[in-house]
């Protein structure tokens, strides 16, 4: 298990890294919410084996009915990278997108628990006029399996305002770290229950990508993407990432979205992206977080030559996104309280601690109750793989993946 830092050590480490925490913020961190996190062994996506495991985990968290009965549920998918990019020959659900069977099983269990409506939401890098289902088909997913999983299933590409004709403003409680508020698709406001489902992966900009980093994709490309403001007259998204505005801060958001709090703050993605993620976790609270660790990949968020397919064989779920992300990190053999400058936050600030500072949830494993499989038994050593890549010169902090041409 990773060593635990004391509060004093934490503050010393963060201070050295240039992250200042106000007294109020540190108080919020100490009292940040905690909720149980369930961990289960699961080595297959075969529905007959997967669904009972998932069902049991939800029961341990208090039951899905309590959460979703009669409610509208929005599930944020984890579609990063183009739909036609694979790690080797492996389907996307085996490596960097959550597996479709896991998604379908979750939806079926929610339907059984009485969910009124389930809306699958994602900022898909596709024109507004492309039905979201087409984005799934492009990845060789069958949208039919989701449509048949629950009575009322909808799809929404949250890069656009769509039927609402305007974005909804989500204010970050306590002021925000980078932006005071974010303008998002109406689906993130219309839902009663917000779910983040994501693979556990390494990430070049934020160290690790799980259910928290997944939230970065709720920001619409038409307001925060590279082409934001350039293509408002038609429905095509120019570029498919948020490098210019959110990563580098080379310009402010478009479509009337609020500008950042301090334009003089660092124009550096290791500073900015973790803060955006923490802000979003505070502004759009997650009610259920599900980490797909059955199979995934190590080494990056999207396929690259140095990435490795792995099969950790675990599922993690919780009702607090920071708690869940912290347990997932521990199961990856990373310290969720690791300060900037240490693995896996070699370059970036620790987004979990930033979210903790905002009072979203605790990243302190000693305060988080885990149910089911102990972390030490679930653990898969992403850290060792990272150190191995680094030793062989195929990985390292700040190493940027050469952009691949998207279809």
């Amino acid at each position: 298990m990773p060593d635990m830092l004391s509060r004093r050590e934490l503050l010393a480490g963060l201070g050295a890294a240039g992250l200042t925490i106000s007294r109020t913020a540190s108080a919020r961190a100490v009292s940040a919410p905690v909720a149980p996190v369930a961990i289960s062994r699961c080595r297959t996506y075969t529905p007959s084996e997967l669904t009972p495991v998932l069902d049991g985990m939800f029961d341990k968290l208090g039951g899905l009915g309590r959460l979703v009965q009669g409610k509208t549920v929005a599930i944020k998918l984890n579609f990063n990278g183009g739909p036609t990019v694979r790690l080797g020959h492996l389907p996307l659900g085996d490596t960097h997108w959550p597996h479709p069977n896991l998604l379908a099983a979750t939806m079926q269990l929610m339907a059984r628990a009485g969910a009124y409506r389930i809306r699958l939401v994602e900022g898909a890098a596709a024109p507004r006029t492309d039905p979201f289902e087409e984005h799934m088909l492009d990845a060789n997913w069958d949208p039919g399996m989701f449509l048949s999983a629950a009575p009322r299933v909808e799809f929404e590409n949250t890069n656009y305002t769509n039927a609402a004709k305007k974005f909804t403003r989500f204010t970050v409680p306590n002021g925000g770290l980078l932006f005071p508020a974010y303008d998002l698709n109406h689906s993130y406001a219309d839902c009663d229950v917000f779910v983040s489902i994501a693979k556990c992966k390494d990430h070049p900009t934020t160290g690790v990508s799980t259910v928290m980093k997944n939230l970065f994709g709720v920001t619409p490309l038409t307001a925060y993407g590279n082409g934001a403001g350039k293509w408002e007259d038609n429905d095509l998204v120019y570029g498919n990432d948020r490098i210019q505005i959110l990563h580098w801060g080379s310009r402010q958001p478009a479509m009337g979205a609020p500008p950042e709090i301090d334009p003089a703050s660092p124009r550096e993605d290791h500073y900015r992206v973790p803060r955006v993620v923490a802000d979003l976790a505070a502004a759009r609270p997650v009610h259920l977080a599900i980490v797909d660790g059955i199979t995934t990949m190590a080494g990056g968020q999207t396929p690259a030559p140095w990435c490795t397919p792995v099969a950790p064989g675990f599922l993690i779920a919780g009702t607090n996104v920071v708690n869940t992300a912290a347990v997932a990190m521990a199961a990856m053999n990373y310290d969720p309280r690791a300060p900037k400058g240490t693995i896996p936050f070699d370059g970036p600030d620790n987004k979990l601690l930033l979210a903790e500072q905002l009072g979203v949830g605790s990243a302190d494993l000693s305060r988080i109750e885990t149910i089911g499989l102990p972390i030490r038994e679930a653990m898969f050593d992403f850290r060792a793989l990272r150190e191995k890549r680094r030793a062989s010169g195929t990985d390292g902090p700040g190493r940027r993946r050469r952009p691949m041409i998207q279809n």
Partner: protein
Amino acid sequence: MRWPSAWTDPALLALLEGTPFNCLAMEWSPALAAVAARARAAGLPLVAIGNALEGVAHGLDAPTDSLLLASDAVWPGMTAEERGAESGPTANPWIDSNGWLLRLARVRSPQKTVWLMFQPPGAPRVVLLDAYLRAIADSGAAGGRWVVSLDSDLQAGLARGDAKALASWKAIAGAAGFFERHRDWNAFEPLGVVGVISDFAGPNENTTPEILNLMGRRSLAYRILETRAAATAPLDGFKALVYVDEGAPAPPLRRRLLDFANRGGLLVVGAGWKQPDARPAGIDHPRVDVRRLGKGRLAICKTSPPDPFMIARDTHMLLGRAYDVARFFNLSAFLSHCSASSDGAAELVQVVSFAIRFPDDVATVWVPGKCDSARLWSLGSPGSSPIEMVPENGGTSLNLPPVPVYAGIELSLKRG
């Protein structure tokens, strides 16, 4: 091949030994008289190009009626700009290809062998071997042939016997020979449920060919129907028809198109199309007015002439990817050609890759249905090799090695 004007030494004819190049296209000049004489003596046909009359006057042959020479072809490849590949609004790099031109030429002259005349780009661009192989594959995969033409660097290298140039020459000859050995593939019929109807002439000679080009770019398998043929050709196998020519179709064709839509098809038409009885489909679309017509849909373009890029993508999205003939993974800038034997027993998926990929960047092609066998043909390989087949999403994923330039996949498939 196009004999270089600078190759005035008849000894260079020895380069042709053991290659598939059995005919020389020659732009006559007196300096080539000795070459022409030796070639004739060796039984090599000589075809006059350039100032053909002068060539014929000096004993070169005029192109025969069995050949169709298209001289407005492009050098295939990704269009380069100063800062990298040129991109469209969806950030896909632009590809220059002659595939659509060959497809159209073969529809118009099915009995002829279509040869393309185009030359490599000049300085300062350096023409790498892969660019030659792409030029050959771009034509060959679409059922045509390129009159191989060498750039000045390769001409000079071969003339002085440079080893690297000779290796490139061998590979070029090997690629040309590959498509000669697979001439039977030319008899395969293109697959696709989208039909593009046009006269491809007059006011339509820019828009509709570009639609073909851009449908190919997004792997939307299409079939070409010339307007005259569309009036009588069976339309049963189509799910969508595109007719965006200027002016109204003749009444019989219009009736057929409306019948197609009424029976459940998607009909994409130009802005001038009037159909007051079609009711709005309730789709907010910036470029097409989508209406219900019987069991099908009518999509009327809002602008005239329509943007070919938008027609290609909107047709694909209105129809839906559920009708994809194949899906491609880890292939970014590429073109595909899907065809089948007349009895449907054999299918062929050909891929020409234009992108520079990581060396270990394997590719996957997914086809809907159960595959009994799949074999891979690559340029430079003496034979085919079996392809790993993996069931996925109700179809079959074909796991390919990296595709630096070309892959030809022969399939026995029961389509789902």
